């Protein structure tokens, strides 16, 4: 279709427009030249890649714009298997991931375990919330959890992950902390929607009772007063404007549930290259620009990198694996 002279003009115009964006003249391997977003354009992982990729270039941490490659499939499994198989020693490649990806690994849904990859660092985190409609009968976390313990099937909960996904597991961790016996934990009704927003809307329509999801996705509903937040799953109260939201910890339930955003790279990347990638990301994290981008998107800037992050990822995976076993998501 691009044969006729007229459309060539269009191509030329588009090419001219695109110059600033994608002049990818080949050169020697630079620290980071490609970011794989293991999802379709528009999602959280895609955002992580695009915003970090853009900042790396804007801050002159890399010489050429970072290529963003979308590789959706199996909640990240396709990208994981691709990197493990073909790009394990590629020192210019980073892959976006989050707690959701670690949950998948812990439940054996990726072709390989945590040690297949080298974990670079996390740059920010979203935090879990449990909320109800503003005219719901549940006034506090105690009220909701008591009703659940009395009759687990009396409360319909919803979120953006499937059964055994991070939203569901966070809700069940609360129920467990409130004293719901292990053998009844499977009776809690869980409904999955395509995101936190749809789940909250369905709750406002009276179709479900409570929602467990990430704060960033539904912050607008909190500000507008359409919903009542029963608990945020953070260690300490959040920064303004959410400083008044009660934590679960302050109400006597020792449960936290973050959803961080970060990156991994192939397992065969050398120590020196790995360290230089971690340093690059740390520099990016320290910039005021990143803080701005993160906050704008409902993330709390939070850094864990290098070996500390590796250990953290392993611990999270172990924790998720054990609770998944308890609730019967994996055998």
């Amino acid at each position, binding site marked *: 279709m691009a*044969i006729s002279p007229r*459309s060539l003009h269009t191509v030329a115009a588009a090419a001219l427009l695109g110059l600033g964006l994608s002049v990818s003249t080949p050169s020697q391997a630079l620290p980071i030249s490609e970011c794989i977003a293991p999802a379709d354009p*528009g999602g959280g992982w895609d955002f992580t890649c695009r915003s970090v990729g853009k900042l790396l270039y804007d801050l002159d941490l890399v010489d050429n714009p970072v290529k963003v490659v979308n590789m959706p*499939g*199996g909640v990240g499994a396709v990208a994981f298997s691709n990197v493990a198989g073909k790009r394990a020693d590629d020192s210019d490649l980073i892959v976006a991931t989050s707690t959701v990806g670690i949950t998948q690994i812990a439940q054996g849904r990726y072709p390989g375990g945590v040690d297949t990859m080298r974990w670079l660092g996390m740059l920010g985190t979203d935090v879990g919330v449990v909320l109800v409609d503003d005219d719901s009968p549940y006034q506090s976390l105690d009220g909701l959890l008591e009703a659940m313990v009395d009759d687990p099937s009396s409360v319909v909960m919803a979120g953006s992950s499937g*059964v055994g996904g991070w939203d569901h597991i966070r809700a069940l961790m609360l129920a467990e902390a409130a004293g719901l016996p292990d053998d009844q934990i499977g009776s809690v009704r869980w409904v999955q929607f395509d995101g936190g927003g749809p789940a909250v809307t369905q709750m406002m329509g*009276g179709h479900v009772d409570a929602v467990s999801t990430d704060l960033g*996705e539904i912050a607008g509903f909190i500000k507008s007063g359409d919903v009542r937040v029963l608990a945020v799953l953070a260690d300490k109260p959040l920064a303004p404007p959410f400083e008044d939201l009660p934590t679960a910890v302050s109400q006597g339930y020792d449960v936290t549930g973050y959803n961080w955003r970060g990156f991994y790279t192939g397992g065969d990347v050398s120590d020196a290259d790995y360290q230089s990638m971690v340093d690059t990301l740390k520099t990016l994290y320290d910039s005021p620009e990143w803080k701005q981008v993160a906050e704008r998107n409902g993330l709390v800037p939070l850094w864990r990198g290098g070996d500390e992050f590796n250990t953290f990822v392993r611990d999270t995976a172990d924790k998720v694996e054990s609770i998944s076993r308890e609730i019967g998501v994996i055998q």
Partner: protein
Amino acid sequence: MDILGFLLHGFAVALEPQNLFLALIGCAVGTLIGALPGLGPVNGVALLIPLAFNFGLSPTAALILLVSVYYGTMYGGRISSIVLNIPGDEPAMMTTLDGYPMALKGRGGEALGLSAVASFVGATVATIGLTLFAPLLVGFAIRFGPAEYFALFMLAFATIGGVTSGSFTKSLLAACLGLLLGTVGLDPASGVSRYTFGWYELYDGIDFIAALVGLFAISECLLFLEDRHQTTGASRELGSAIPGMRRAGACKATIARGSLIGFIAGVLPGAGASLGSFLSYTLEKRWLGRQGDFGNGDPRGVAAPEAGNNAAAGGALIPMLSLGIPGSGTTAILLALLLSMNITPGPLLFDQQPDMVWGLVAALFIGNVMLLVLNVPLVGLFARVLRAPSWLLMPVVILVAFVGVYSLNNSPFDLYVMLAFGVLGYGLRKLHMPAVPVVLGLLLGGEMEFNLRRALAISGGDWSILVGSGISVGIYAFAATLMVAGLVYAWWVRRTPDAG
């Protein structure tokens, strides 16, 4: 009136020369991307977001650029649907049903012109609806729970016999096949993999762009290779777009009905633009009955889905802006765009940032007008493409489709999927079984299943929840009426051989 003031301000901004220029560029680039088989609105907008940042455009200017790209890609998809029988994206699929037969009759230019006008009207209706009724419609939309959505999908499949003039059994069979193929992949609700046989590439299900391009483009080429002496299908002359624009007057009732149905489908976040164009087409076919000649190049068969498609796209902005819920892939991208510009769609957006909302509405309107104007010269351009010899045209279409589909996921696997669907599509054509229901099953099956399961998860396994509300009972009653009417009509046509 406050809203009117903001809207006028939005238009004043959108009409600045720089912004008009951006709209022009956006429409042209978008049309190009949309006309490439495999690339659609989602890719177009996603790819250009970084561009908007690179130029340091103001939020309104960036919105105008991207919204123009969005409309351009929708229009581009329409061009390949009508001219080559290859839908560029899912909502454009219904346009092939009558658009391509029109092109075969040498009325392709007319079809393109008509579709531009119908889209324009559809989008305008949606814009007006958005301006007047947004808060009211939000209240209506949240009353739709999983059970109500399931009823809506049942309605879609109850009308599937209306897709083509072929056998009802075969249409339904094709739909069932599509629904079954739609279950392939990782079940998001439980994480269990279904019919994937160990292939990670299938975990996200069958990519429906790959399936769509395979079913339409590859099968077209296979058919062509049977008899190399026939023409490429479409008549070499497209004609002018002007008569089509005039013809739109004759279709005004169709366009009005299509716009209304599409708008309602768009407002419901679980339904989306595909369902909007689909229902507009089938319901219009039912409405016209014997007066219509759908499937054989009836201009109303182009007008209805085009109006519906664009009205749905506009309507989908209501849940996107006021609830932060994207109703389609494209609104998801627009949502990401707004977020990256520090605008959080949600219940407060209309109150807190009205200039943004109405700027967007104005941008949509400008993009629409721009396309209507661009349409006339574009028809000439595409007529020239059609005059290319088939040894050039067919390989170019195939390769563009290949690269387009490959670039979606960077996966050669999708190319094999596309080939397999090409063979399937060829077989379906030989069996006189329509391909459209297969894609619809693939496309809508997932949401249909999840809403069924959500409803039953809420009720704890009690199936009576499906008929537990007035809305769902009403939808089922409507579906049953249509189904019975369809059967009676078919029986009546058979009794009177001179009909239809």
